[in-house]
């Protein structure tokens, strides 16, 4: 196997997922619409008191974006399982972890990035202070990437099971708790004018670890889930 085979396979996989998402770009818009609608519900439910909405805005946007990311997670491998493309990935000469890393990056680009881009607007709508906006954006970039990696590992574990969507939520949400605590902690600290770098550094450290381990775990999980 030549040295160029690995980047070539990685790019082929990435390109495939991005092109497939582009052909169905209406589907990619649904999580964004979901996030917009859920965020809009909060002022209706809690009343239009500005101080209250501004205080909860960071947390509301964080949780809404993370839930919107969950919506399409269980479909990551479904199509590939049904048309046999998943078997071709398993049988390809390249390490499966490399192909999974490409899929994780593609899912983040296609699903998480639009949500992260629309999040400042949602936070602005709820009245988040301008000083806390960059912190929220940074926290969302880190948190969405971390949950993308964790979520796809769990999706690989549940591949082939019926009703995997509910199971997946039950498995992923406990893992999302520390991510939400650190991300919301950073935004809250920025709102009060306190130093906010420490919680983000924790998130970044967890992301660095997950970037290395998640593709390997995902490849192993897929082989376990499909071995029958």
């Amino acid at each position: 196997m030549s040295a160029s085979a690995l980047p070539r396979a990685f790019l082929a996989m990435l390109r495939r997922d991005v092109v497939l998402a582009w052909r169905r770009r209406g589907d990619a818009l649904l999580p964004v619409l979901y996030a917009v609608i859920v965020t809009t519900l909060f002022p209706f439910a809690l009343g239009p008191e500005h101080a209250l909405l501004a205080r909860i805005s960071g947390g509301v946007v964080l949780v809404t974006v993370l839930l919107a990311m969950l919506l399409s997670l269980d479909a990551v491998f479904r199509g590939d399982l049904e048309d046999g493309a998943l078997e071709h990935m398993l049988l390809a000469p390249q390490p499966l972890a490399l192909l999974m890393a490409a899929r994780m990056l593609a899912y983040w680009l296609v699903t998480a990035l639009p949500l992260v881009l629309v999040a400042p607007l949602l936070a602005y709508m709820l009245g988040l202070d301008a000083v806390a906006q960059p912190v929220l954006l940074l926290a969302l970039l880190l948190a969405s990437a971390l949950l993308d990696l964790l979520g796809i590992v769990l999706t690989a574990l549940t591949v082939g099971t019926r009703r995997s969507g509910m199971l997946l939520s039950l498995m992923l949400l406990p893992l999302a708790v520390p991510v939400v605590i650190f991300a919301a902690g950073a935004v809250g600290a920025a709102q009060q004018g306190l130093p906010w770098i420490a919680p983000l550094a924790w998130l970044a450290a967890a992301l660095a670890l997950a970037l290395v381990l998640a593709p390997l775990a995902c490849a192993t999980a897929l082989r376990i889930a499909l071995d029958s």
Partner: protein
Amino acid sequence: MSLHAAPADPFIVARGLGYGRRDERVFGPLDFSLDAGCIALVEGDNGSGKTTLLRVLSGLLHPTTGEARVLGAAPGSEQARAGCAALGHLLGLKGDLTVQENLALGTGLYGAREDADAQAMLEHAGLAGYAHEPVRTLSAGQKKRAALARLALLPAPLWLLDEPYANLDRNGIALVNALLAGHAARGGAALVTSHGAVAFYEGVGYTLRLGT
């Protein structure tokens, strides 16, 4: 791409190879070997374990008895996967991608044979005008032809083909036989399953009968 096994080694060696599901035998025990340049036919009725045999050899299933060596390594190991291309009932083509994009994806993952030309291969497979059509708009037989064209572009010396004749018309069957002949002439080998209702490739090395 270089072949790791020495040329004299057989591509596949199976000793007492068998697979069972919950104490029920699916196939085997089988003893056979497949040499370079040899096309072997696996024949058997529906449910005789042809697909399972190919899945065991590609490493998707673990044999319950005996052992197999594929290209000198365990099935499914990196060395075995590097020289092995499989085509199953599920073709692994993405319906929203065009024929050409699907071929490019295949060569991206598996590498391309040096003398392979995607356009010429599509013409050979009778899909000349369909390169830019999404695969979901093709008929079942055309999808099969697209999958065969993708297979023939790959450098893998060992083919594991599960019912390659299914859904194909007479020209399609001739296409499979021509691809097999070309593959054998390049020194490749193939294990091909069939339920035995079509005009099989004439240069067949031997026939493995399952489930008798």
